[in-house]
């Protein structure tokens, strides 16, 4: 199966999260960022929030000044009044605007796709922005994309080739069904190309773990790890505190550390 997911056109360590709504994609992304930043490896880390709902900046406690949606609107507005001869100016300006949308923080940088007011399909604009994001990503050691439930949003607006696709689920049958659908989409290679796909089972109580793993195995993809139910995350969510601020001793942290090791992204384990 892994062979069928291979792509010939991959660079860097690009990781994308997907899975049913509410299973914990954003929480896992935030925890991975926390672990990678505190690993002391001084990696250049880029986080991309591909979900228009923009949950990742909240989970990270970051204020976003400009989204890629705003850049998209500006491109469309400028393109309407730009003559052929001046397209090169627009091409230069794109990198300026994408850099404006990059929020640089301690140990990592963040881009939020957000929403575009312009609506419409404007496929060439999406292509243009995707190429700018792909170009920007080349300067980073690790890129983590927090996606929507499906793969379309990542494919359309962020990136077409990634290294590792992580499908997240909780113990629900519906969550697993979505993982199975994502697997089929990824295997078809039509929506997104990835070289590795793994599953993470989230919010699992110790006594449920065995059964959850048994059900997950039926989907036949690598299980990267199980994250236990973590009251600290729930508490931070409840009081509106960033997930990034949870204690290092929180049970979910150890589980996500194991996942990071399995992903083989840190230089010490490369």
């Amino acid at each position: 199966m892994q062979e069928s997911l291979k792509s010939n056109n991959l660079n860097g360590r690009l990781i994308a999260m997907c899975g049913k709504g509410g299973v914990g994609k954003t929480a896992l992304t935030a925890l991975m960022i926390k672990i990678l930043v505190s690993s002391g490896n001084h990696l250049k880390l880029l986080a991309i929030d591909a979900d228009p709902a923009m949950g990742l900046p909240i989970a990270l406690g970051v204020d976003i000044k400009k989204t890629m949606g705003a850049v998209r609107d500006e491109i469309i507005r400028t393109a309407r009044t730009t003559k052929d001869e001046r397209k090169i100016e627009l091409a230069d300006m794109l990198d300026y605007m994408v850099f404006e949308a990059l929020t640089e923080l301690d140990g990592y940088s963040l881009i939020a796709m957000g929403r575009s007011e312009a609506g419409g399909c404007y496929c060439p604009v999406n292509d243009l922005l995707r190429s700018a994001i792909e170009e920007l990503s080349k300067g980073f050691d690790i890129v983590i994309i927090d996606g929507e439930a499906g793969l379309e949003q990542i494919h359309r607006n962020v990136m077409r080739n990634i290294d590792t696709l992580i499908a997240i689920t909780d113990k629900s049958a519906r969550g697993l069904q979505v993982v199975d659908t994502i697997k089929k989409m990824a295997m078809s290679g039509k929506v997104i190309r990835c070289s590795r796909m793994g599953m993470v089972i989230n919010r699992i109580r110790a006594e449920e773990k065995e059964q959850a793993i048994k059900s997950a195995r039926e989907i036949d993809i690598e299980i990267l790890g199980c994250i236990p139910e973590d009251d600290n995350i729930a508490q931070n969510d409840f009081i509106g505190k960033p997930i990034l601020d949870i204690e290092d001793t929180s049970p979910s942290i150890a589980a996500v550390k194991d996942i990071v090791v399995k992903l083989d992204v840190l230089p010490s384990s490369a």
Partner: protein
Amino acid sequence: MEPFDVHIEKLSRYLNDVKRKRQFREIRCPTGSAELLEDLPVFVGNLEKANLILKEDTAVELGNPSVASCAFLLWTPNLSLVRDGVINLIGPDIQEAIGESLPFAQVLVVGGAEIKAQHHLLLEQHHVISNKIEGYMVRAAPQRQRMWTRVSKEAVEKGLTFEVLGRALMAIYKSELPVIEATEVIFITSSKEDVKGLESIAADVHRIKDKALSSKFIVKDDGSYECTSEYADCTECPEQDICDEIRDIIRLRRKRRVASNSSK
């Protein structure tokens, strides 16, 4: 599109005024591109990998959108208006501003007897020297006359200064655009106010360029249109298709008017 002689003079008056109030250095460099590039401490040429300089690797930031920036180019066939090989620096140099985010203006004045209006965009494109100087990241918005750059800590350690940037810029122009005979560079880092003082000249340049790049029609009193494009012959004009369409529409309207008048 006229050469920017008037604007070069205006710029010169503005700089004379600012120079009196601020720290000012005039750096005289050789004029040949090979001599300009001699012994530069950083690589100048096409870089294999795009320069991405994040905050943590930045020694000095110039023209961050939250501070101020202004960048434009002026050209003239009148070589006496360009002090070839001169770099004007108003404000602190890179080594004097480590850790700072400075306002930034970069103005290039280029001269060449054969420079024509149609060279303008090509000349401006080279203004954005992104990915051509090691340790120097450029993000430019030519339509807004903005330029946001970062100098890496590594490049500063190697000795990157405004003299090096100016030399690289002049050498790139002279080697890649044979039509250029003389180049003068102006860098301003002294204050937001000094950078913003250039905006009226920049806006003028933008307006003139806009006008030149769009075949302009003036509606005359009798309702007919007059093309103000600088092209002597319409077959040279890139907008000819549009004009042909408009002429067809005018013809159709005239026909209709004649038909309705004769039926009265």
